[in-house]
């Protein structure tokens, strides 16, 4: 018995580790699979959604993002290149999903929504991502965001008032709530034609492949 006991101990620990790993994997697997038809972006009023690209595009890419999240910032440049390359067939929608763990994520989302009230959402969106490394490390971000507002030609007084107002907070909260209903837990979470993209595919090559597949599906369907 003494000769086999160590092998039994090792085997038990091996099986327990493997079992725990499988249970954890199942629990952590992304739960977002698809956006129900009733919640599709096309059902909403255009003014409620931040979208760029043709409204009748073959592919709609919906992103849940946090302006202070490093992976979101890292994905932004390749995503913009994809937007340019698929200009006629891709519509991009952005929704806020700021995390409390990121010190300035909510302020950044409010700044983008305040810019939206003056019709400059995407300009602020692009600027916030481009300058993420700068403002993310700053203690007081408001003066920086004010300067960004000036750079993209916003009425500064109105921007300051809107950024602290209830309307932008309600919009951010509404985006977040929608994300939670869809099972969004991390950012960026991306849906292509209402189907969620696995986190392991959040890279330019896999995204292009997913968009190509969606275009092909649409072509075959029509």
């Amino acid at each position, binding site marked *: 018995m*003494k000769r086999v*006991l160590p092998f039994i101990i090792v085997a038990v*620990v091996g099986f327990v580790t493997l079992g725990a790993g499988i249970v954890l994997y199942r629990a952590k697997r992304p739960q977002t699979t698809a956006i129900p038809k009733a919640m599709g972006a096309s059902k909403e009023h255009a003014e409620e959604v931040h979208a760029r690209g043709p409204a009748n595009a073959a592919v709609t890419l919906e992103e849940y993002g946090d302006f202070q999240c*490093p992976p979101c910032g890292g994905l932004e440049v390749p995503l913009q290149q994809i937007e340019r390359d698929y200009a006629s067939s891709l519509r991009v929608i952005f929704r806020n999903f700021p*995390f409390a763990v990121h010190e300035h994520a909510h302020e950044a989302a409010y700044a983008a929504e305040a810019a939206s009230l003056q019709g400059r959402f995407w300009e602020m969106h692009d600027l916030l991502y481009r300058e993420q490394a700068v403002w993310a490390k700053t203690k007081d971000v408001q003066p920086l965001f004010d300067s960004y507002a000036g750079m993209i030609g916003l009425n500064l007084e109105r921007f300051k008032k809107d950024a602290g107002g209830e309307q932008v907070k309600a919009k951010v909260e509404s985006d977040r709530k929608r994300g939670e209903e869809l099972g969004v*837990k991390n*950012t960026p979470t991306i849906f292509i034609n209402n189907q969620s993209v696995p*986190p*392991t595919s959040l890279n330019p090559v896999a995204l292009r492949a997913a968009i190509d597949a969606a275009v092909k599906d649409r072509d075959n369907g029509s």
Partner: protein
Amino acid sequence: MKNKRATSKPAGDTIAVPRSQIVIYSIVALISLAGLADATYLAVQALTGETMVCGGSPDCFKVLGSTYARIGGVPLALVGAVAYFSVFSFAILGAFGYARVRRFLLFTVWSMFAVTLWLLYTQAFILHAFCRYCLFSAAMVFLLAGLIVASRSP
């Protein structure tokens, strides 16, 4: 006579192991279990893609989402989990008198020690960010190396 009492009884092709060695092997096994839990958690995170997205510490993402966290597409944490499990297995077998496993135990622990030094250097000087799970693993490897050194001293 005193020395005889301080050893466990050999069985078959095993040898008698001094009690002090059994204690050290047992501690090594326990520490490797802690490291195994840590590495398994990180490996699962990497396999689900959680380290590629954001929802927690930006520094952790910087480290775990970096290219240094994978070798040929395989998460380094998975390799770490295998290494910790090997250390656990060797320690248990060593404690039960399987003398031959000692060299494998030494090789594995010193290999992990070398990799840990490289990873600490990478975090400090290349990525400029530290991941707390990686630091915990580094602490476990340092403890293992310390115990291995202690077990060799007279």
